[in-house]
């Protein structure tokens, strides 16, 4: 902004204002280099999106179909950018998505990464994620819903609006429910302000399908339906090891196998929430480890003692005790 964007009549010759809505301006770093890019490699280098994709591959276990879909989306955006640079017609593709999958399959985590990728590729201007649920959108009395929904939408502009458990918006059993109003406002913005924000609806698969069936307008405006598969036991084991490593814990001798058995049993039980259940199980193991160490008042505790989870910490779980019992209490 070294040259003024305005002109005073009769003074210096006016500077034609650069269009801030233009495609290049959306990228914070070096918009000019981005506009001159002619090859895929140039766009990738300029947007540093490859870094995010690599992080996604490395940090998230499993989820192969989701990762593939995200790569496809990234490829489309890169090619569109190149088309735009050559002045070809590049209609802004609709990027609204729905994430369906069982609890704990990484929907929120992927949404965060998605915001980052879309930002790097210049599809959204700011790249922040606003996560909301029904309570944030739907009001409690007549005339309360519209301002509430609009306020949330305004906050999400330039980024990604993530609506968790979106099916709660629509309550067919109550015809005076205000959820429908929120959906209508949402639809309007999804259609008319595609450049300004990306909406991601998330929820359990079966209930999302019912939700879409009763709101066909919503379903047809969502271009990408991503289904998050459940994790296999091996993937869960990997997730557990990563979680432990992050918190500076590790499995002691024999504990890894015990945890594998634990997962095999736990996965059969009701209320299994994939990665979330793994995290809870590990949290409970940490509790047991803490009380085990706490009991030995006079022992001097070294680094190994404090970071190691022993088989005993895992075997105390109710999953092993009862076999067929429900969710072990956290």
């Amino acid at each position, binding site marked *: 902004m070294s040259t003024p*964007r305005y002109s005073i009549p009769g003074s210096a010759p006016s500077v034609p204002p650069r269009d801030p*809505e233009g495609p290049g301006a959306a990228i914070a770093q070096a918009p000019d280099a981005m506009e001159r890019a002619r090859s895929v490699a140039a766009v990738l280098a300029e947007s540093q999106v490859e870094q995010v994709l690599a992080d996604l591959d490395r940090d998230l276990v499993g989820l192969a179909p989701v990762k593939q879909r995200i790569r496809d989306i990234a490829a489309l955006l890169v090619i569109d950018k190149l088309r735009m640079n050559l002045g070809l017609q590049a209609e802004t593709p609709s990027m609204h998505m729905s994430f369906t999958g069982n609890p704990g399959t990484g929907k929120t985590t992927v949404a965060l990464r998605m915001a980052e990728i879309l930002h790097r590729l210049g599809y959204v201007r700011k790249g922040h994620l606003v996560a909301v649920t029904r309570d944030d959108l739907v009001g409690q009395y007549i005339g309360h819903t519209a301002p509430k929904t609009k306020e949330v939408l305004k*906050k999400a*502009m330039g980024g990604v609006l993530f609506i968790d458990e979106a099916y709660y918006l629509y309550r067919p059993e109550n015809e005076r429910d205000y959820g429908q109003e929120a959906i209508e406002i949402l639809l309007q913005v999804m259609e008319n302000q595609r450049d300004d924000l990306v909406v991601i609806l998330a929820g359990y698969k079966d209930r999302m399908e019912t939700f879409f069936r009763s709101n066909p307008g919503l379903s047809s405006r969502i271009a990408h339906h991503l289904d998050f598969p459940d994790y296999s036991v091996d993937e869960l084991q990997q997730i557990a090891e990563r979680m432990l490593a992050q918190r500076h814990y590790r499995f002691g001798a024999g504990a890894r196998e015990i945890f594998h058995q634990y997962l095999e049993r736990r996965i059969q039980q009701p209320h299994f929430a994939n990665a979330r259940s793994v995290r809870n199980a590990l949290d409970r193991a940490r509790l047991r480890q803490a009380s085990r160490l706490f009991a030995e008042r006079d022992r001097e505790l070294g680094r190994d003692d404090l970071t190691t989870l022993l088989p005993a910490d895992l075997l105390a779980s109710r999953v092993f005790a009862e076999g067929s019992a429900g969710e072990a209490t956290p």
Partner: protein
Amino acid sequence: MITNPTGRITQGQFSFLPDLTDDEITAQIEYGLRKGYAWSVEYTDDPHPRNTYWDMFGMPMFDLRDAAGVMQELRECRKTFQGHYIRMVAFDSTRGIESITMSFIVNRPPTEPGFGLERQEAEGRTLRYTVKSYATDRPENERYS
């Protein structure tokens, strides 16, 4: 204030310049958001220079990240109050400042008739002066139509 060469009221920033385009307004809003200001839209149809407190159009917009949301509010205000004065106001909520840091007019009536000088004869040979906008002779909401 009254005899100004542009023949338009001049309040806040940029008011001696030609009207800002929407792109320029967006750029100003973007600047404010980067600084962490909360924007709000205000309107009035009383152009008197002492009319400091204009009517708020909706709530001040806190926690916004992008100018698109503010521009949407401005578009709605323009639609509702055509031919009114509309200004953008940026509030800095930093402790110790907590006041308006930016303010500029983004919408004006098509014609601004200006102000007349009124003289009131008081005790002795005293004369009291005041200004009155020609527009305010008519009732609210009919002043610039």
